[in-house]
């Protein structure tokens, strides 16, 4: 009955000379990636039954003396299928073991890439199911984590080429980085967000995408998430927010094999706002005013209006935005028609081969991506990856990997409220505009035409603001392993990451917003190197196993950011920085940082059920003052497998409770800061009439900065039932970051905008639950499911003395996101609706809402997040579904505000026709209206119900930010994949080993949300700390894909 679909076994048997023997030895490795398996029990079986046994060491080696009459060796390891080998006179027996099921991982990759049995770990861990990563790809690898891991919260990138945010167990830092460290094949990589300069109002800066966004899903073998200091302490300073370990594929070490994968996905907007189609361009129900009837015929000219507060659309003759006569009629699809279906094509080929000891894998992937807005975000990416394993001698091997990524994006979309962001422009397009009226976007002199006052021509935005950037990225990882003796091993690691980003942005002459045009070029380069040397010692004394290591490392990073910009073009359309009407502004910023470290760890296991883990690390950072630049931080943890501890009891409960473990851990991680934060400097800001001028940095630097510390305590329980068919895990944690290096905003009267402090504390407490299992498993049908839940409560406990709040983001200064004492991180403040004692909304005598400034309107962080994934397999078909849930938290929708104030959406129809009737047809005075817009659930301050009708156009909506705050909860069908493996019999004839075809969908269905129609509650203006604001984002979209995978 128990047929395992994921099982494959390969045994390598090296025949040797036959002779009398007393000792047998060999290596046990993991079938999935050929890495050595430590802790495997090797039992000798004689005719009379089991006899002596031994464990494999960290290199997966074992050696034991054979008793008389030895016949078989049984290799057993929890979660792996036991292997029985006939000794048959061999002295060397190497074994490859395979997992019993993909559900249950018993060996996990831990910090520094060390493989450990999960039973010995003192903290919670979770690896991601990567099986659908290539079939249902998202445009940013970070987005693929959404809903899969308990406690991991994702803010997806706003565009296909933008930056995504990932936060594990809440935000720890007030003003610093809150995203985890990314580690690829043991080498920490830089994941700087590419939207650092993009503001909410949408300036002229672009989102260049976060660095790891370019990682090729095709090469990923495993993603392991280390949630916070407890798991990641050994990565040091940079892992205070946890770490995401990505392991890339290696050769299977079997034989030559080639895999071809072709994936095509298509993106479409699936939900638009409900636009109103009754009133067109104009103001106060009229088409005159502001010079709109300034022509001899007195026909209203709509070019002067940018809002849909005009007259009823009845086909009146008007002059459209392009100066042509037209009938004043609704264009119900004018926004829809603007968007297209985007295509993303990924083709990859991978070849691998060699043998167990010397092998290679090479892969190449080509990606072409588009955007739902024609003409922007055209991406081309080439990923080439080579990985080689060489075993030089018995005791020395080298694992090398080099990845090269070339990523080119043409016409990145301007973000948020930028006038160059066509998505933003379209959110409030006047209801009678035809797209064709904008098609001619420039006149014979090259100037932008066909605009409604500040509603600029979207086609100008798309076509006359070209930009392009190319990023070449090189990642190298080299791991040299030397076996010194049976219990001592030495590893040297060298990892390097480099990238070069070159690009330009060009804004042609003649635009309304910048008549002279502008241009900028940028050249950034970055290099970071990690070098580590580690000695591992593994001993076994009786029932005690002691695995220790001691290492030293250095991390060096160097970056250089240069940009050149010109604010005036001579010739239109010439994309060259020399095309400059005045002197260029040049910026150069180079920075350097070094962290040196020593670290070590000991983990002591007793009889495979009791474990104690100790780690310690000391860092020296160049960014801190010499008196405070070294900092030590330890961790301690333990785990207790009680089902194995009480053997008698264990045997009785094991048919039901097959595994049970308690774990507990406390860890501290120290953190430094960015370079050059200690001494004040001046900068030269420009030249004014022949004189250069300089200013002091507006940040008050602190020469006495100390390292900040994050302490985290966690404990949990892992249970597995019914022969591991069901597993359950619960974790509680309590983390606090103290002594934070905070860049606090201070009063400008101090002469500075902000000052560095060592102060403040944020506490994050939470619970994580994971339940997974295989409810049905038969020969032809399997159903496995996994659910996760995480609740994080954050609390800003203190900030700097005299500073009660720290601003994280703002929407034009009126809606602010804060880290504020006594509140959760990311509290949203703005003008709220005044309420009486009974909580009823109050209106003034005019019937307009009374706004109270600076009210807490919500929190950007969710109450809880969760995911529920299911996969079904029936014969050659499989289906997997992932549902992603977010409960609670709020966001401010600037788009909704704008489209409401513009009268574009159907929410603005409330009382509108009625008001028109009473005010303009009946001519009732404003003070005595008998019809119109009314806040029905509101009261006057004296407690009487509101009975005042007002104009829907001036109903006070804009003054009460609360009306633009929405619950950010959602339930989404995040991913659905249906696949079919072609039968082997069919493939044999065409010499294909495996063929699989699958259909996929991402974000197919928003099952539940509270945000207004056409607005995605996941949207955010930034991938930085200032979450909770949406502005000019794409309406919700879905991705559909077709994937073909062939292995030869």
């Amino acid at each position, binding site marked *: 009955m128990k047929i395992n679909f994921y099982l494959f076994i390969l045994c390598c048997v090296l025949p040797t000379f036959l002779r009398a023997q007393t000792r047998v030895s060999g290596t046990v490795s993991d079938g999935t990636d050929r890495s050595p398996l430590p802790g495997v029990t090797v039992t000798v079986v004689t005719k009379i039954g089991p006899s002596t046994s031994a464990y494999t060491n960290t290199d997966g080696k074992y050696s034991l003396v054979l008793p008389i009459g030895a016949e078989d060796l049984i290799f057993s390891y929890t979660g792996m299928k036991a292997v029985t080998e006939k000794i048959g006179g061999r002295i060397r027996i190497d074994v490859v073991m395979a997992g019993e099921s993909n559900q249950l991982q018993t060996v996990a990759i831990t910090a520094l890439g060390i493989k450990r049995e999960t039973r010995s770990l003192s903290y919670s861990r979770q690896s991601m199911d990567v099986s659908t990563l290539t079939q249902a790809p998202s445009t940013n690898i970070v987005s693929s984590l959404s809903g899969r891991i308990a406690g991991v919260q994702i803010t997806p990138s706003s565009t296909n080429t933008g930056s995504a945010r990932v936060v594990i167990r809440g935000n720890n830092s007030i003003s610093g980085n809150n995203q985890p460290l990314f580690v690829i094949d043991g080498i920490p990589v830089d994941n700087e967000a590419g939207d650092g300069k993009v503001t909410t109002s949408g300036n002229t800066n672009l989102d260049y995408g976060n660095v790891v966004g370019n990682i090729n899903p095709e090469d990923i073998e495993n993603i392991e998430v280390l949630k916070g200091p407890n798991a990641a302490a050994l990565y040091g300073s940079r892992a205070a927010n946890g770490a995401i370990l990505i392991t890339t594929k290696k050769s299977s070490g079997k034989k030559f094999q080639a895999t071809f994968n072709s994936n095509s996905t298509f993106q479409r907007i699936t939900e638009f706002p409900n636009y109103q189609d009754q009133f067109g361009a104009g103001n106060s129900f009229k088409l005159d005013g*502001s*010079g*709109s009837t300034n022509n001899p015929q007195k026909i209203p000219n709509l070019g002067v209006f940018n809002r849909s507060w005009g007259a009823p659309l009845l086909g009146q003759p008007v002059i459209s935005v392009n100066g042509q006569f037209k009938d004043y009629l609704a264009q119900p699809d004018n926004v829809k028609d603007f968007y297209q279906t985007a295509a993303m094509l990924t083709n990859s080929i991978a070849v691998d081969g060699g043998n167990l000891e010397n092998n290679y894998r090479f892969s190449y992937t080509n990606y072409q991506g588009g955007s739902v807005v024609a003409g922007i975000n055209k991406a081309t990416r080439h990923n080439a990856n080579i990985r080689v394993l060489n075993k030089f001698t018995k005791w020395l091997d080298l694992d090398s990997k080099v990845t090269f990524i070339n990523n080119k994006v043409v016409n990145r979309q301007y973000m948020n409220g930028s006038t160059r962001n066509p998505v933003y422009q379209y959110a409030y397009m006047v209801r009678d505009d035809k797209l064709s009226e904008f098609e001619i976007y420039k006149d014979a002199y090259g100037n932008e035409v066909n605009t409604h006052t500040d509603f600029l021509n979207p086609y100008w935005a798309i076509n006359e603001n070209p930009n392009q950037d190319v990023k070449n990225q090189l990642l190298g990882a080299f791991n040299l392993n030397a076996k010194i003796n049976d219990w001592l091993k030495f590893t040297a690691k060298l990892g390097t990451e480099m990238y070069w980003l070159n690009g330009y942005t060009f804004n042609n002459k003649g635009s309304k917003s910048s008549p002279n045009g502008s241009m900028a070029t940028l050249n950034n380069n970055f290099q970071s190197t990690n070098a580590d040397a580690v*000695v591992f010692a593994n001993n076994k004394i009786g029932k005690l196993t002691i695995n220790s290591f001691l290492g030293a490392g250095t991390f060096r990073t160097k970056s250089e950011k240069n940009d050149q910009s010109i604010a005036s073009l001579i010739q239109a359309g010439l994309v060259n920085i020399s095309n400059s009407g005045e002197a260029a502004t040049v910026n150069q910023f180079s920075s350097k940082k070094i962290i040196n470290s020593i670290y070590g760890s000991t983990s002591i296991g007793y009889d495979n059920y009791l474990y104690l883990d100790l780690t310690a690390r000391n860092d020296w950072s160049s960014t801190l003052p010499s008196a405070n630049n070294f900092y030590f931080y330890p961790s301690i943890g333990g785990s207790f497998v009680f089902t194995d501890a009480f053997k008698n009891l264990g045997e009785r409960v094991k048919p039901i409770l097959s595994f049970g473990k308690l774990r507990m851990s406390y860890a501290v991680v120290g953190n430094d800061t960015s*370079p050059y934060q200690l001494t*004040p400097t001046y900068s030269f800001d*420009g030249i004014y*009439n022949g004189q250069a001028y300089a200013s002091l940095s507006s940040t008050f630097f602190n020469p006495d900065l100390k390292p900040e510390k994050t302490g985290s305590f966690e404990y949990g329980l892992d249970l597995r039932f019914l022969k591991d068919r069901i597993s359950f895990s619960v974790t509680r944690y309590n983390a606090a970051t103290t002594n934070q290096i905070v860049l606090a905003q201070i009063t400008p009267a101090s002469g500075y905008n902000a000052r560095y402090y060592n102060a403040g504390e944020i506490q994050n407490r939470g619970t994580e639950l994971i339940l997974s299992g295989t409810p049905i498993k038969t020969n032809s049908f399997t159903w496995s499911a996994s659910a996760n839940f995480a609740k994080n409560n954050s609390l800003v406990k203190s900030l700097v003395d005299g500073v009660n709040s720290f601003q994280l983001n703002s929407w*034009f200064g009126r809606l602010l996101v804060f880290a504020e004492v006594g509140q959760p991180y990311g509290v949203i403040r703005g003008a709220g609706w005044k309420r009486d004692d009974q909580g009823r909304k109050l209106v003034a005598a005019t019937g307009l809402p009374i706004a109270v400034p600076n009210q807490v309107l919500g929190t950007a962080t969710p109450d809880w997040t969760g995911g529920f994934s299911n996969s079904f397999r029936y014969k050659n078909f499989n289906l997997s579904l992932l549902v992603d849930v977010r409960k609670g938290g709020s966001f401010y929708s600037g788009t909704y505000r704008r489209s409401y104030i513009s009268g574009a959406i159907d929410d603005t129809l409330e009382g509108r026709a009625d008001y028109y009737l009473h005010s303009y047809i009946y001519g009732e005075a404003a003070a005595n209206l008998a019809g119109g817009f009314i806040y029905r659930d509101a009261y006057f301050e004296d407690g009487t119900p509101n009975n005042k009708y007002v104009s829907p156009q001036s109903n006070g909506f804009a003054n009460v930010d609360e009306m633009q705050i929405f619950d950010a909860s959602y339930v989404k069908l995040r991913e659905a994949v249906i696949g079919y493996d072609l039968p082997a019999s069919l493939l044999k004839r065409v010499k294909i080993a495996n063929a699989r075809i699958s259909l996929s969908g991402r974000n197919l269905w928003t099952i539940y949300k509270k945000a207004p129609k056409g607005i995605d509650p996941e949207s955010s203006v930034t991938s930085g700390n200032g979450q909770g604001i949406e502005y000019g984002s794409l309406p919700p979209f879905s991705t559909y894909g077709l994937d073909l995978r062939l292995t030869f």
Partner: protein
Amino acid sequence: MKIKYILFLLSLSLSMGCTKDFEEINQNPNNPTQVEPDFLLTTSIFQAMNLYGGDMNRVVFFNYTQHFSGFQGEFQRYSFNNATNSGYWKSTYIGCMQPVNQIILNFKANSAYKNRVLIAQIWKDYIISNAVSIWGAVPTTEALNGSPSVPFTKEEDIYYNLLADLKQLASSIDLSGDKYSVVADKIYGGDLLKWKKFANTLRLRLAMRISNAAPNGNPEAAKKLVQEIFANEQNTITVQAETAAPVWGTSSDTWSPLYNYVVYNYTANKATIPVVNESLIYHMAPYNDARLAIYAQPAKQGPQLNKFFGQNISYGGGSQYASGQVNPHTGLKQDDYSYIGARFLKPDAEYVFISYTEACFLKAEASLKGWGGSKSAEQYYYEGIDASYNRYGLTSAQAAIYKNTPGVKWSSASDTTGRSSQFKDWLQICSSYIAAGDNYKQIIMQHGYTRTRRRCLGAYQKEQSFRISTTICYIRW
């Protein structure tokens, strides 16, 4: 095997040894840690021009004085916007004051920089004098040192402190000592005597500001101060060339904010282009003031083509009045009104901090109070009108005609024959009617025509709502 141990230990010690260079590594290679005063004074002057002559000027001062019209936004509607106000506050302290404060801090102890430090102090005092007139009590003595909580100084004390400080500074300038380079000192090209006069004239301005009766002033103190200044009158601004009026540049990062808004970004700002307000025109037209053609351009289109035609402050209003009269402003665009004079719309327009004209009217006012002066109030008054006409390139013949106009002519009354409606008062702030012998109003009105008005509100007004309008008196084109 041993070699590996040694290698390991070696790398360990190497990595530890490196921390010695850490301080060097953490030296910022991109920015200097010290700069000469020249670079900082320029910043401060340039920032002050952009603050007082920028957005604040357009949307607050000239809106409130009804010189300009055509706005959108909270401040512009006499409301208040925290973010905008914070922006002004930020520019005042960080943009304008901090650079000169750095000169004072870094070079105070160095006698080779004596005069430059003094001028930095004078300039800082000038910025504070504007800040106090805008906001009242503001942080002064403990400001600019990076402290998160800064105490405010009482408004009265700020005035007394500034007056005492400026006296000391003006007298300490060593006319044969060190100076700023011609190109760095955008106001006086390094001329030490002019800075001395600037400081003394600023004293006169501040003294006159506190000349109102208590609680809005301290006439006794003001009188003493003015007499002191008059005793040394040759060290106040006495000629046109001493007007503190730097010019903006012609490149996009240095041109005038008004040019940027009105001319360069004309198409983008079409709906809110500031045009001349009708109040200004109604005040100047009855006197045939030749400066009207400087301040305003005739309408280039619309119903009042080629005439001086100002926009009403209520931006149009309803299309019909109750009596059935048609509102002449209905349906008009900004382009249908008089644009601001070309002189002020140039990219490299000037910004006047203190003018010779103002100095004359301040003296006229002081002299009228009988507080001294080498000339009579009448002489100072006419000198001021001449100075203003001269400043705007008008002839002395034009000035002579103007000076002889009823109401402008010293002690004469406005000629209201057949046009009394043109002199109708509006909340006692808008009428330009002059009664016979009302010399005080004549002086104040001239202040208004040289871009100041209602300076009679004086210092330390207790009502915040008047605060901004008070400022207008002291900040001009």
